[in-house]
């Protein structure tokens, strides 16, 4: 995963789920769900963003916490999709 991809994802999460608040804790492994950063709307927003930005197709079965619950998981998911 490139640093560029990480930076793009982080910027999206800060802008859309943390409302630009850089002071909120957001490590690569911070759970977006446990910390109430995303709800159902946020999940859909995130998936649409991934499809539009990274040119990947997200299947229904992909929409699970194992793929989308943290910055690291999302980045790894994008990598797998782009590779596969």
């Amino acid at each position, binding site marked *: 995963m490139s640093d560029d991809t990480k930076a793009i994802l982080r910027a999206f999460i800060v802008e859309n789920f943390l409302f630009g608040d850089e002071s909120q804790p957001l490590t690569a492994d911070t759970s977006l*769900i446990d910390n109430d950063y995303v*709800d*159902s*709307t946020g*999940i*859909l927003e995130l998936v649409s963003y991934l499809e539009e930005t990274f040119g990947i197709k997200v299947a229904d*079965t992909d929409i699970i916490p194992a793929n989308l619950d943290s910055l690291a998981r999302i980045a790894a998911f994008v990598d797998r999709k782009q590779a596969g």
Partner: protein
Amino acid sequence: MSKVRTFEAADLDDVANLFQRLLRKTSTPANDDLKSYFRQIFLDNARPEPAFRSRVHLRDDGSVSGFIGVLPVSMQFKDRQILALDCGSFVSDDRDVDPFAGARLLRDVLSGPQDLSFTETANDISTEMWKSMRATVLGSYSLGWLRILRPASFAIEAAANHMRALKLMRPLGYAFDGVLSRAVGPSSWLGYEQTPGKADAFLTEPISDAEFAALLPRLLTQFEIRPVWSNGQLEVMLQHAARKRNYGERHQRAVKNRSGKIIGLYLFYGSKGDIGRTVQVVSEPGLESIVIDCLLRDASACGLVAVRGASQPNIIQAMIGKKCAFVPAAATIVHTHDRELLEALKSGQAFINGLVGEGWTRFIGDRFE
């Protein structure tokens, strides 16, 4: 592992209980009437293609945590037939701990091969979810209109919706409205003001389900996007619409000119003292104002304190000057990949709410006993 799949008879108990708890806001378990109605609406007449059927979301343990009801509607768009899915019944449990359930349900349905997906009953949460799927909110279909006919009685009735004991004050409201009416005289702010030569030159009369069903399609040809009901389908829907016991008496009427030609139809509910609810009002092009005045006249004559309904672009235009208030209501939202269709929807050329949506079902306005 959690998953989304088509709704099956084995899910009826779980789905009806979810609906009861989350939408009807009661801890009483769903009864047989409600379960049977879910079967009738979402299973008995469902299409065979999985993409056009209702869905459930299952947790890891197989229990149901979400439901989206799908009602297919055949429609005409210009010279072609399209398939629309009304996706208005949408509930998701555990929203805080499992935000994936609702997201997966909505995404699964909206990514299907139908030409158009829509809802006309979206609350704030659903609206945001649909918007995240790049759906479009149709502003001119998402307003509620309200026309007050008896101001004091309306104030009491509106307050009594939150505190039932206030219904005891109804006689005071009638008395005050009577005094006001005599003091002010004829006024379009107080009830229906007579319009000789306009609406008062037209008659209205009750019509049967069969007559209503036969007449409505002719009045809809003015819309570029309109439903195409199969033989008997609309009549069956009207039979469902006859059962809205929470809304009071049904008024299904036709508006006729002096030569007997029917120029409009409407369906509203309400008994004396109620705030009436309009499910549908439709007219020949250019005669919307007359038909709305006739509706207000009938609503006033049967003692309603106010009447309300959902907006459509042509109705909004005709209501200007009729002392109607417009307030935010459940949103009408559309999702389509067809740009031409979307442009037609955005420009108000669709007949898409009321009887096209879920307004005809018992889920809206009836009791399950």
